[in-house]
């Protein structure tokens, strides 16, 4: 069963149409497929490579280079915790311990219910309001363990 639906292919084609070369659309293409399927499996990598007329190895080289292309399944909500210098000064490490304890996962892991994945990230550009985390593209700043618990509870309700 092919993974790329006609709707996805249309989105990919639109990116290719505005690109100078088919290959130049590959980062956008993987982001599109990931939006639909959650991550880039071996099967979807092969199909995307085929669609872009790239070799799978070539596309794999690109996929593994960038932070936000996932070659393993992730949870519904990816929690990015900033581990750069301002958040370090403001104590991200103890926040990270709290998050890991609360969710029962370490960095790089996903909760058993498939809801949350915890990943480290470089400076989120919220340094004046450190520590900072990002969940599904949503930024949370001046974070305390209590605030984190409230935020996570609201995601659980939403899920």
């Amino acid at each position: 069963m092919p993974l790329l639906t006609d709707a996805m292919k249309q989105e990919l084609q639109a990116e290719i149409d505005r690109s100078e070369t088919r290959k130049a659309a590959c980062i956008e293409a993987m982001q599109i497929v990931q939006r639909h399927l959650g991550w880039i499996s071996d099967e979807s990598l092969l199909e995307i490579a085929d669609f872009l007329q790239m070799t799978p190895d070539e596309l794999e080289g690109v996929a593994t280079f960038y932070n936000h292309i996932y070659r393993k399944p992730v949870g519904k909500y990816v929690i990015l915790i900033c581990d750069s210098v301002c958040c370090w000064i403001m104590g991200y490490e103890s926040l990270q311990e709290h998050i890991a304890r609360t969710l029962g996962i370490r960095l790089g892991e996903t909760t058993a219910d498939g809801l949350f994945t915890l990943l480290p990230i470089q400076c989120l550009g919220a340094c004046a309001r450190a520590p900072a985390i990002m969940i599904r593209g949503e930024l949370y700043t001046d974070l305390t363990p209590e605030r984190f618990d409230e935020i996570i509870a609201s995601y659980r309700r939403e899920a």
Partner: protein
Amino acid sequence: MTVERPLTANIQPGGEPLSLREYEKVGGYQAVRKVLTSMTPAQVIDVMRESDLKGRGGAGFPTAVKWGSVPLDSKKPRHFIADADEMEPGTFKDRVLMEGDPHQLIEGVIIGSFATEAESAFIFIRWEYTLAQKRLRRAIAEAYENGYLGKNILGSGFNLGLHLHVSAGRYICGEGTALVRSLEGDRAIPHSRVPRQTECGLWGKPTILNNVETLCNVPHIINKGAEWFRDLSLCEDGGTKMYSASGRVKRPGLWELPMGTPLREIIEEHAGGMREGYRLKAVMPGGASTDFLLEEHLDVPMSFGSVQKAGSRLGTGAVIVLDDKTCPIGMVHNLEYFFAHESCGWCTPCREGLPWAASILQAIENGKGIPEDLSTLEKLTWMMAPGRTFCALAPGAMEPLGSALKYFREDFEQHIREKRCPWR
């Protein structure tokens, strides 16, 4: 005296940015109109030269020189890129400019493209800047609808397409040659600067790349003139500058101030000084890849030349304050860990040297350091000095390390002597 703040005049903290109509009401797109209907590309570059605008991406390279270095008879289409990757730890000025006034950046991109005769433009933005992406997308659509982008702009015969590229994330993408590779759909690996990108860049065509803040200055210089721009500043470099402060200061934040504002004024007045119970130990004046400065340097004017004379760099103007209750070795370890992780792996000194530096620092912090570690770290700063690697990531990573070895010597030695971190 009223202080002029052209870059942030339209920005309401916490509010929505101006729509295109509102932006036009306060004089927006007048500069594009002026340039496209009454100036030649060479005249635009002349105004930039007189204004002495220097690039705000970190290196302070004169914008007019960059724009003027595209050979007149070189290939077309040419490309123009706004570097909105902003991943230098401590730095968030471009995010605020894009979220707060997206049309200002678009106007700068249009003028820069006209001056360099580029027909295709990109804003290369980092993945995490989701709000800025949303606002830029809307603003770009408005600019197309109103004829500021697309074919035959304002009837001038000038055409320009603008695409917002959302990166999939890596610090190295902000480096000019790596960014171009990334747009071409490759791993973002820097390459040699010969030939220059202004001759042979994206898809082999002349390509000009500027920082977001640099470009946001451009419409104002066109509207109000080079002399007005130079007079905004307190020093030899013209204009205002977005400065920020983070760490344990009372009011961490971001301010548009005259170029050359003293470091002390930024920390003590704008950021409100240190928090109760904390003393200032050292400062990084311009983001994670700049040398530490000490209390004794606080009177330095924050301009490219003066900060360099004090032994560091203005960088992005993002001040990071180290307080006396935070371990300087732990901080340098965090910085080198960042750089080690972000190395693209292309050249050996950087690929091998940065993880080595990070692991030595970690050992010292954990009480496992030995006296020879300090000479090894010193050797590494020499191995990754400017000119020994393809790009400036590794030399940049050595700036905090080299200055830490100089200024925090006693702290390093105490860690090694006592086999523990005195701050823990």
